[in-house]
């Protein structure tokens, strides 16, 4: 059983660096209340390749819709804004973290709780789709 977990973890970690140098470091989906329709995912998305990476769409089999959002505080007022695209130069990264940039996940198809692995697909301008699998944490 332990060996199986190790193998599964190894597979997931290899997935995490696949895809033309795009790496998702310590990614996670925040568990939300049972009836939540909006969730958020975090982690550091890094371009480890030698060419620019241009993300034009994000999706997940487990959610209706995925968007990139940024939380801003303007004199105490919380505002969110959506970014339609994201460009990362070689070596550049963006950190998705609470109260900052985040992936906003709309309407889950299943209960999102620890143990569930959430696939996230980043579509690039090249047409390539890079897939990561994110654990759920509280």
């Amino acid at each position, binding site marked *: 059983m332990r060996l199986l977990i190790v193998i599964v973890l190894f597979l997931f970690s290899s997935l995490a660096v696949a895809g033309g140098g795009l790496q998702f470091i310590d990614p996670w989906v925040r568990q939300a209340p049972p*009836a*939540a*329709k909006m969730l958020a995912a975090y982690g550091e998305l890094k371009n480890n390749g030698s060419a620019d990476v241009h993300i034009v769409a994000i999706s997940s089999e487990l959610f209706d819709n995925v968007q990139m959002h940024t939380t801003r505080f303007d004199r*105490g*007022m*919380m505002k969110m804004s959506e970014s339609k695209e994201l460009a990362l130069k070689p070596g550049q990264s963006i950190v998705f973290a609470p*109260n900052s940039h985040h992936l906003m996940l709309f309407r889950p198809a299943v209960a999102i709780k620890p143990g569930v692995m959430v696939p996230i697909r980043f579509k690039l301008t090249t047409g390539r789709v890079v897939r990561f699998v994110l654990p759920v944490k509280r």
Partner: protein
Amino acid sequence: MKSKIILLTLFALLNFGCSGEPEPLKVPSNLRGLIVDSPATKLPAFKLTDHNGKVFDNSRLKNNWSLVFFGYTSCPDVCPTSLTIMDKISKQSGLPDNMQYVFISVDPKRDTTAKLKDFVEYFNPKFIGATGLKAELDKFQAPLGVIYDYEGDTTSDDYEVSHFAAIYIIDPRGRERAYVLPPHSDKQVGEAFNLVYNYYK
């Protein structure tokens, strides 16, 4: 001489009667975001409904120290972060016994009693959630300076709500004593509360 003493006494009494306030709490410069009201801000009568369907009005704030946060349950980032911080604070030592944690939804259209219950109890079974008619929400929020705005198509289920995201400290007389500006950390809000509580208790 006698009349002077009487005058001075009267003046002192009047002065005390007007404010009844100690000197304003001085906030250390290394504590970010804590704004103290001096004098405390009184709240007008308001009437909301809590996550169990019970009335939530001014009387629920009396005799308790309350941490109050305004938000909405469809908020994916800031509201869960701030409620997680409030839960961490609730587990700190040295807090008064009469402490309560309140989440007020500024999105009554989507946030039903059942949704509020699901939301607040996920973070802490003792947390209180409340919302109500806009007119009643505004009675509570206006003196606190809480502003909010709906963005997107409010006839759909996908709109967002921009909102003032401070954590308020309400004293046992049901008055706003202070607030802590976002972004929050449990250390920052915990220190802010301890400072305010120990000074004004």
